[in-house]
């Protein structure tokens, strides 16, 4: 077990963003965290990445309570741009290199070129599509054990989406676990192993897509419509 959440709850003033979530994740699988906007996907991811503190409950990473050292093995990519304004593309690479031992600078440079970015480009001047590519390039240049991608396909054109998906797939393997939150079901149906359906902060169902296809013949969209 790579990750386990026990009765995980996050309450903001007057609102439960995540409510008693119990989840287990295994190594070498790709999970889709599916739900509408505001369903608690981002809050769950931020808690798992160690950015947000749970109100109650527990997160176990490799069977021990999550702590700051685990961030060396957990990569988190937020929906919004978060790099410092003064940075250039190359500075982002340097930042990751400075703080993450699993970061591969050569791979980063290669992916930057492949994504049509340039090292001298200012981060704040990038278009939303270019910015999304940079985030995914930096995140996937790490050999993280657990990779949390929050809406990686949001607000970007079809071609860029295809590039991002192929990049994610090229990095998926037996040694790492990838969690992708999205509401774009069609984009992820072909490659996720398990779907976690979340609504109003509660996990409604966890479905093994291969098994579902074999036993009931239902697609991801069918299950989504049934559950949500």
């Amino acid at each position, binding site marked *: 077990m790579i990750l386990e959440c026990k009765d995980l709850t996050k309450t*903001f*003033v007057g609102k439960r963003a995540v409510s008693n979530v119990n989840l287990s994740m295994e190594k070498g699988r790709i999970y889709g965290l599916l739900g509408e906007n505001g369903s608690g996907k981002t809050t769950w991811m*931020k808690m798992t*990445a*160690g*950015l*947000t*503190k749970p109100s109650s409950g527990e997160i176990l990473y490799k069977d021990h309570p999550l702590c*700051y*050292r*685990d*961030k*060396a093995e957990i990569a*988190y990519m*937020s929906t*919004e*741009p*978060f*790099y*410092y*304004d*003064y940075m250039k593309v190359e500075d982002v690479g340097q*930042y990751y290199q*400075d*703080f*993450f031992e699993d970061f591969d600078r050569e791979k980063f440079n290669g992916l930057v070129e492949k994504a049509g970015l340039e090292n001298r480009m200012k981060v704040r001047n990038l278009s939303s599509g270019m910015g999304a590519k940079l985030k995914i390039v930096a995140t996937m240049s790490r050999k993280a054990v657990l990779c949390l991608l929050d809406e990686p396909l949001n607000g970007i054109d079809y071609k860029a989406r295809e590039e991002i998906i192929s990049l994610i797939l090229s990095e998926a393997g037996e040694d790492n676990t990838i969690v992708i939150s999205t509401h774009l079901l069609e984009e992820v149906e072909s490659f996720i192993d398990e779907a976690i359906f979340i609504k109003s902060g509660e996990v409604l169902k966890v479905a093994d897509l291969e098994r579902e296809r074999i036993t009931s013949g239902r697609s991801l969209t069918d299950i989504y419509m049934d559950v949500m």
Partner: protein
Amino acid sequence: MGKLIKYEWKKQRTSRMVMLVGLAVCLLAFIWGLIFESDSVATCSLGLMLCGSFLLLLYTGVESILVLNRDLKTKQSYMLWMVPKSIWEIFGAKFLAAILQMLFVFALFFGAGCISLISALYASGGIRQIAEACTRIFEFLVTGTTDYNKGAIFLNLIWFAFSFFVAWTEVIMIGFLAVVLSRTLLIRSRFAGFFAVILFFVINWIAERGSYLVTQIPGLEVSPIGMNVWEIFYYLIFCVVVFAVTCVLADRKLSV
């Protein structure tokens, strides 16, 4: 921690550039005033440099608090909180970067002061008189009399600088705690910044109240310059406690 300090240092580089440019302009104006014997230009530029040195030393401290507030308010907070570093290292780096920034400003203005003095000496030609005048000014500032002992003046200057540093540290620490408290209690609120300012003054008042009580202990002498030893001791303990509270609070409750 060195890498954290490196990135904290970079966050204030715009203000450093503005200071450098401003100071260079003032310095050039002062030299221009000396060369062309324009007393008004020389006096104004020197006055600006003197006022600027005090104001900017204070501002650099306040700016490091503002940077923390911005870090916590925006998504850029992820940059700090996603790295595998403890809260103690993160806040320690922020504090050390703030000290470096203060030392930079101090060195900048000290350098400008030296250049101004050398320029003035060169222009007037009366090295001995000006050197003597400078000594008398220092003596007056430090002891309030003209009857002086050079060793005592030097020690008093060091004590004054240390007192200033401790007071400045206390301001930074209180600022950090106020921001963290505010961003913990009022998460996602647009009033969090305002609340942090209120908290800053409240905690500062508590610190000053404690300091006043320390000076009321019978047998403690009031220092003629800077703080007395017990006040320094009190403020150092206060800073350590405030720093520890900030880190524990951020570690357990702060969400970005």
